[in-house]
């Protein structure tokens, strides 16, 4: 192994294995959107805008509920090497899993024959951008007033230098042994996103899930504070 990623129990950015990176959420940053949010999670800087529910008569629309659409996109300047602005296969897959992570929380039956768009733009990427996108998108959906059963929060766990760690940064994501993003709907004790690549034993996998759930509880508090901060000011139209 080249450089160790954990030295004396400290990670490359000085965190302990179970510590989250700094996480900050702002709500209502885009005036035209029905709902919006901005998240900084580690070096991730991501904006999310929600448009809709809006009328749709397109082929394939659901006549019983709103159709949720999601686009996860990385800006060309968001990475070390310029990223081509065309959606990559990775972005298409992530768009899909983000949609699948958010949809269980929403009460889409209230808006038949409409569509709701979730536009995620990663301005700067770090490890765990899909998790941060989900955390931010759920807040933006709440800001848009889409009725939901619960907020959704996501975080990655993984194995680095043989140790289970929370909330992987870029180097840990690239050089660690495994990466497992998980999203939760805590009220219902449900997992709405679960992916893993790398290697983990069954025991590590289970312990990782529990570690992610504990972190999700903390993230949910930050989400709620962000929403409260905006709405405690009164009429949302005046401060957008």
């Amino acid at each position: 192994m080249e450089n160790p990623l954990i030295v004396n129990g400290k990670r490359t950015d000085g965190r302990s294995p179970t510590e989250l990176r700094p996480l900050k959420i702002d709500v209502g940053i885009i005036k035209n959107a029905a709902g919006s949010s901005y998240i900084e999670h580690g070096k991730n800087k991501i904006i999310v805008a929600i448009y809709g529910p809006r009328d749709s008569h397109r082929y394939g629309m659901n006549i019983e509920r709103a159709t949720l659409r999601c686009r996860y996109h990385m800006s060309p300047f968001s990475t070390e090497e310029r990223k081509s602005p065309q959606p990559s296969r990775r972005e298409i897959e992530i768009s899909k899993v983000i949609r699948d992570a958010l949809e269980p929380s929403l009460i889409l039956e209230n808006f038949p024959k409409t569509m709701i768009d979730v536009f995620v733009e990663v301005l700067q990427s770090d490890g765990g951008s899909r998790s941060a996108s989900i955390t931010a998108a759920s807040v933006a959906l709440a800001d848009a007033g889409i009725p939901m059963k619960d907020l959704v929060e996501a975080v990655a766990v993984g194995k680095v230098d043989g140790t289970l760690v929370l909330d992987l940064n870029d180097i840990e994501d690239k050089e660690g042994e495994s990466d497992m993003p998980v999203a939760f709907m805590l009220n219902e004790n449900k997992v709405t996103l679960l992916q893993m690549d790398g290697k983990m034993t069954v025991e590590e996998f289970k312990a990782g899930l529990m570690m992610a759930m504990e972190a999700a509880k903390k993230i949910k508090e930050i989400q709620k504070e962000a929403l409260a901060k905006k709405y405690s000011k009164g009429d949302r139209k005046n401060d957008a």
Partner: protein
Amino acid sequence: MMPRKNLLVSAVRKEQILKTLAQGKRVDGRGLLDYRPLSITPNVIEKAEGSALVKLGDTHVIAGVKMGVGTPFPDTPNEGILIVNAEILPTASEYQEPGPPDEDSIELARVVDRGIRESKMIDFSKLVIEPGKHVYTVYVDISVIGMDGNLFDASSYAAVVALMTTKYYPFINQNGNLVKGSEKVPLPIQDLGISTTFAKIDSYIIVDPTWEEESIMEARLTMVYDKSGDICAVQKGGNGGLLLDDVLKIVDLAKSKSEEMRKVLEGVISNA
């Protein structure tokens, strides 16, 4: 905007499916934790270096392996390259339109890719002809020709069997010129990741869902185990959530199921 992904399942049919599940059976007569009849035929395409036709019930998938020579990625100058591509052909169902791969095909290819890559199935360090200059590119192309659910397992089995049975002409570096060898060699295989897919319908956990079952499921979970019994790839799918307890249950069920399916696949490969 998007083609139909799910079958329309009538309320009466759904009730029938649920009632049958309550009796510990599926509507096609299987138990909750039984796979459909699985047939795997390796070497179905003579012109491909490796190939396999998988029939998992009425889900039919064919995978072909072609070997190419390319330049390595700058960050991995001493490793061969794996490229996995999947297409759900218009032959697969009346709802599938021709065109570039949609999100389902892309997800399918990426999950199969992850299973092969993360299980360390192929020793890519042995697929180098000239370090930094010429390495082998292993192309795995997956075509779904008939669709009845659980494309993930069917495609994964087709891909791994095609890889295990691949034989190709190596290139030899003679003073900077690449010369084709005269005898075919197999790929440097060192592990075998086995994919198993579970679905949650109502309160029931089932394995190997059909398309009809996928159309009414809450969510599915695909897990890949390597030969030492470690997990090497996971993907949750579907627009519902999975209870944490169910995830923990599926992790154990998938492990024993993968051991069962491993024997089936190894049997196929040893007879090939």
